[in-house]
Structures are given as C-alpha cells and as structure tokens.
C-alpha cells in the first residue's frame, strides 16, 4: 500500500461543468502525477508536479489544469468538462523522477 487515495472514485457529470479530482498521499513523496487511461492508449501523462507549486505539462495537458499547494495533495481540474475527457484517471507518486511510480486506485469519470 503506497498510501495514495483518490477522490471521488466515481463521478458522472455533464458537459461544460467544472470538475476537480483530488489525489492525496501520506508518503511525503516529492513527485506526483496525473494520468488518464483509455482503451488502446495505455496511460498518458496529463500533468506532473516536482514539488509544492512546481508543475509541468505532460503529453495530453490541453483542457486540464493542476495545483499543488501542499506536498500531500495534487488536484486535477477540468475547467469545462467535455465528453472526450471521459476516462479513468490515475494519480501516481514517486520519490525521485527516476524512481518507480506507485499508483492510486483511479477515478472513473463520465462526462455526458
């Protein structure tokens, strides 16, 4: 158990509404990541953080923003959800950038 929780675990929302997903860790790791998982694509990195208030874009960052005001929390926001953002979202943590990433349980988001 890597001490990672995600909330909510399931969410159904409507197109155009804002959505925030939360990742919380108890390990005090420096790096945190948000991925989305879609059939045929594996996992794709949305954004990652290498410290409090330090974030960078990943492969599929359009339409997403992130914030990290505390070491333990990393928030992913969809400012105006679209149906193409229906996916399973995973948070991950690692101590260093080269380290193994450990994943949270995932959040299934459906945008109608």
């Amino acid at each position, binding site marked *: 158990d890597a001490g990672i929780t995600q909330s909510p675990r399931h969410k159904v929302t409507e197109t155009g509404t804002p959505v925030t997903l939360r990742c919380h860790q108890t390990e005090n790791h420096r*790096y945190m*990541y948000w991925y989305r998982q879609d059939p*045929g*694509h*594996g*996992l*794709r*990195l949305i954004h*990652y953080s*290498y410290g409090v208030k330090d974030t*960078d874009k*990943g*492969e599929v960052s359009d339409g997403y923003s992130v914030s990290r005001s505390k070491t333990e929390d990393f928030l992913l926001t969809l400012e105006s959800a679209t149906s193409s953002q229906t996916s*399973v979202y*995973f948070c991950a943590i690692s101590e260093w*950038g*080269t380290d*193994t*990433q*450990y*994943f949270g*349980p*995932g959040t299934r988001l459906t945008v109608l």
Partner: protein
Amino acid sequence: AQKVTQAQTEISVVEKEDVTLDCVYETRDTTYYLFWYKQPPSGELVFLIRRNSFDEQNEISGRYSWNFQKSTSSFNFTITASQVVDSAVYFCALFSTDSWGKFQFGAGTQVVVTP
C-alpha cells in the same frame, strides 16, 4: 522522443502454459529505466519490476522472468506455468532522463488465462 511498443494486444492461454509478452522501446538516451506493471480486472496498477539501462542481467522472480536486451531494445516478460490469477493487462513503461519525470507507457497486452 521515446516510445514503447507492445505489439501483442491480447494473448490467450490455457492454465499451466507459458506466456511471453513483448516490449520494444525507443530512446536516444543512454540512461533509462524500464518497468512492467500489472493491471488485474479490479483496475489497480501493480508495480512488478524496474531495471536500469546499465544492468542487462535477466531476472527471475517466482514464475515471472524478464529478458532485457539492449541490442534489440527489448524488455520481454515471461510468465511460466500461467494461472488464472495472471489474467490481467500488462504494461511496459520507459523513463529516460532526457524526458525528466515523464513515463512513456505501452498500450498494454491483455493476458487471458483459462482453466
């Protein structure tokens, strides 16, 4: 740029058969790390192994073994004497230091083990 290819979309075997999952990677970096993760039907992602580019020694862990060959840019994974509990999607992933912080995952291989 880096890339991970898992050409096998799905592999079906009968219990006790061996199954090998292929992973081919591309990177221009000389320092990189390779990973395998397992995703069972319950959905969580479970870390299996991490290897760095300077260590080509093959590894065996119980029924799992990994064959890392830099000459062919491959990091293949074999399950010996498969069991129903091995049914899952398996992902190969690459991290190279010229893409700091960014894992590149393959598309995954679904393994189905039937009794």
